[in-house]
Each structure stands twice: as structure tokens, then as C-alpha cells.
């Protein structure tokens, strides 16, 4: 089974973020976070098996075996394999769109989810929409490859509203980053 490479995920996300923001303070803090990146584990299993990922049903998690691609307002929608919180699709937003009056977090945690249509794994960024009280609709808590806060980019309990004008959590989106 192909697993995460947190180094690559962190680099990809931070590069995207760095190209978009002008917030000096958060960039400096992210710079410190980048220093930490080499400390994240490099998984030999992901390198060894990267050439031929096993996508048989036996290698898929319970979520991946049961995921669907039609309804993004349901917790079993394929991109939501590691989401925690209210789905923005149920709160006046979309799968990559924040509801009115909220602000997307520039950083996020990530998941590696398998699309049942093509059997391939994709990297998904769960960007929080911030600045309003908790939406409360469509609460989901999926935990494929979700880890603990010492590996924060793979932890879905952290409120990721860093760098926004308010740390108040409203809902979570699931943005396609690319092939995992």
C-alpha cells in the first residue's frame, strides 16, 4: 500500500502558499516550520512501493472501499478520507469554495485519497473556512492516515485558521492538489 511522504506534501503545500500570500509574520513562522521539514520521517515503504501502488480492494482502507464520487455533501465522498469538521458544501460553500463572509486558511492539513473512478490516489488539502461561528451542518470525522499533532500536516484536530483575520472555524473544504 502506498503511504504518505510528508516531506513532499509539506514542500508542495508551502510552495503554493508562499506564492500567494504577503503576510510577513506568518511567512516567518512558516519559515521556521520549513526548517522542521527535514525532521519529518521519510518513509522507506513509500519509496520502495512508489513504482507500483497496490490499488486492489485488499489494499484499500474501509473508507476507500466504500467511497462515492457523486455527492459531495456526504461524509463518504471520496475526497473526504481525512476530513474533520463541517463540510462547506453543506454551509453555503462548495468543495473548494468558502461560504459568504468567510476566509480560506492559507495553510491546511492534507489527505491522500483514492478516487474510485480511476483508482488513483490524489493529494487533498483540507483548507478551513474561517471567520464565522461553526457551521454545524454535515459534521464528518474521517481518519485515513490521520496522525497526531506532532506531525501536524497530517492531523485533523488542529484549527488551521492561521494567517486569516479570525481564528474562528466555520467549515472545511477539500481542494484537489494533484496526484499523490
Amino acid at each position, binding site marked *: 500500500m502506498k503511504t504518505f511522504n510528508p516531506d513532499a506534501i509539506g514542500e508542495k503545500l508551502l510552495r503554493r502558499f508562499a506564492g500567494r500570500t504577503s503576510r510577513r509574520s506568518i511567512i516567518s513562522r512558516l519559515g521556521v516550520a520549513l526548517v522542521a521539514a527535514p525532521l519529518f520521517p521519510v518513509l522507506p515503504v513509500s519509496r520502495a512501493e512508489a513504482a507500483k501502488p497496490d490499488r486492489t480492494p485488499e489494499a484499500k482502507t474501509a473508507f*476507500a472501499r466504500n467511497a462515492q464520487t457523486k455527492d459531495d455533501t456526504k461524509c463518504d465522498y471520496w475526497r473526504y478520507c481525512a476530513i474533520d469538521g463541517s463540510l462547506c458544501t453543506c454551509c453555503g460553500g462548495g468543495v473548494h469554495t468558502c461560504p459568504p463572509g468567510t476566509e480560506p486558511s492559507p495553510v491546511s492539513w492534507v489527505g491522500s485519497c483514492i478516487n474510485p473512478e480511476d483508482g488513483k490516489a490524489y493529494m487533498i488539502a483540507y483548507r478551513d473556512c474561517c471567520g464565522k461561528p461553526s457551521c454545524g451542518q454535515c459534521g464528518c470525522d474521517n481518519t485515513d492516515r490521520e496522525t497526531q499533532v506532532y506531525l501536524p500536516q497530517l492531523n485533523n*484536530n488542529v484549527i488551521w485558521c492561521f494567517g486569516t483575520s479570525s481564528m474562528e472555524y466555520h467549515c472545511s473544504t477539500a481542494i484537489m492538489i494533484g496526484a499523490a
Partner: protein
Amino acid sequence: MEPVRSKLAVMLLAGLAAVSPALAESVVTEAEEATINTLEPPKTGWFFVKGGWGTAGSSIFDSATGKMIGMIATGRDSDMAIDPAGKVYYVAETIWTKGNRGTRQDLVAVYDAKTLKLLTEIPTPGRLIIGGLKTNFVLSDDGKTAYDYNFDPASSVNVIDLVKRKFVRAIELPGCANLIPNPGVGFSALCADGTLATVAVKGAAQEITRTEPFFDAAVDPIFANFAYDRKRKQAVFLSYTGMVRTAAISAAPAVSEPFSIQQAAGLRAADTKPLDIAWYPGGSQLMALHRPTSTLYVLMHMGEYWTHKQGGDEIWALDLASKKVTKRIPLKDPVNNIEISQDDAALIMVTDRDNNGKVIDAKTGEVKHTIENAGGGHITVVEPM
């Protein structure tokens, strides 16, 4: 209409006459004053139960009676710690000047243990807003220093002098979180590279050392809500697959070889492969250490790997000395949080996602009290020092 009114009046008078002897006994004849209760110092039989996600307040329940006896104002996503001397409660929290907006303020609020009144606030430069973690904000054994984890999104630890009630300084700690007080040294923390880091705080400087890697943070992570025994200076770690390790905490911590909690129960060890149905640990605060007997109580459920947030269907009692599961307590409904009183009574408290709580006798498995709306957050008890 008039005759009906008369009849009603007669009936009312008759009714009053019938109950008047009972009323007379409870009639208060003198004017009353509004009074306020106070609390005794924190006791081993008390459970401090945080409200569910997004709510404020930790309710205090007496395990002997199941009754609520007070509440500490633990703001949303705050972290609470009990002064080892029993004189105050500390709450590390984040508030905004205009409620949900305005200027962010991070601080440690200090509450008097007797009156629960706010004594003072210690401003800090930031903290991780998460809720549900018991290893975010920890006190040294002597109660003189607090370590408050910060993530913004770089990782650091704020050192707070609780005697002077002042923030001292921040120590950068890349790639690590989840703190353990390390007496006479500083603190230790779990790290993403699979090590345990130890930060020796030396005045304005510090020395950071790490153990050899002993777990894989992405494949079989160790739960961040681990337990720590201050008397034995021993941390107890549990991984997603159910591997148990102990760590002797010192300037150079030593981590034991792991063993499987499932094998300790006479079952085969669980692994990380899909479609492998086994008993796995899961929940939020999923383990509680009864320090007097060195017994670890773990919420376990049947399922596949990556179900580490699923609530427990059973409580397993693991004797750490013999490495045997000595008891399995079935639960009627799944629960997410567990804690145990640190005394001979060994009363367990569990809470579920609907905020309901139960007090269970660890020796017999008997449900002693059922408490509606107890709170869905984590549970704290007084630790033996």
C-alpha cells in the same frame, strides 16, 4: 358562568386546605440573603469534565455521589491544569477583545481553588488552539513552572514562571509536540521523527537531545493523549495498533521495548493492513492510568486500522507490571473519553459524543452513576505527586 366560578373557588380553597399542613413545615418566614458556596481543595475523587467541542466550562463531579459540585471557567479550546499544592487552577486559553473577533489574547488564567474566582491573568505570546489534548499544557512537579505548547504554525513551547506569574520565554521545538514534565531537567516531547526529545532548560539557554527513533509517526503513531506517572517518572505510550511502551523520564529518557495489548489479552497482535478486523484502541482521551496499581485502562473497539477516533465498546485493564490484560469491561454505548480516580476506590469516568457520562467501579465493572450532560471533552483528575 358565575356558578362555575364559585365552584372553582370552593375547589381551590379546599385544595389549599388539604395541602396547608405540609406547606407549613417548609414555609420560610424570614427574608433570605443570596449566598455563595466555596470548594474544598481538589480531591482525588473529583472528575473535572470539559464541555464538548466549542463549549466553555469544566464541570466538577464528585465520583462518590455523581453530583456536580462546581465549574471552572475553561474557555473554548482551553487547557486546564491543577496546582500540585491544591491552591489554584490554571487555564491556558485564547480570547478575542470583541468576542469572536478583535485582538487575540493568549493567557494563563489563575483561579482560586476555594472560591473559583479569577486571581490574575498571565499574558503569553500564543498557544495551539485545539482542545481535547491533555499534553498541551503541563506543570512541573513542584508547581513552579508551566510549559504551554504553541503552534503558529511553527512549533515552540512557552515557559511560564508560576511563582512570579510571568511568561519567561519561548523555546523553539521543531517537529515535536505533546509535553511531559521532566523533573529537574525541563520537559520532554514526542516528535515526528519517531523520537522523544528532551529539553534541558538552563536559565536563558537550553539543550535539546533526542532518543533514537522508536516509532513511526506516519505508519503507527503514538496517541498524543498518553499518560504520565509523576511518582514513577514514567510515561506510558500506546500506538494506533495497540503497541505499549513505557519511558523512564530523566535527562536521558529510556524507552522500553513495545508489547501488544491484544497479545496481553491472549489475542493476536493487530496490524496496519486493511481488512484485518481486530480490537484496536480508539477515542479521544482513550487511556487512563491508575497510578496506585500501575494499571492502564484503555478504550477498545473492534474494527479495521485507521479507526483510531472510534469510541470504545470495552474497557481493557492492562497490568503494566505483568503485561497482562486482567479485566475487560463491556460498555452499553461507545465512549470517547476515560479517566480514573487515583485512589483505592478506583472509580472510572467515561463520557460519550452526546456529552453523557458514567461512573464505573473499575473492580467490578458496575455502573455507579449515570450523568446526563456531563460534558464531551477530556477529563482531568488530581495526580499523586
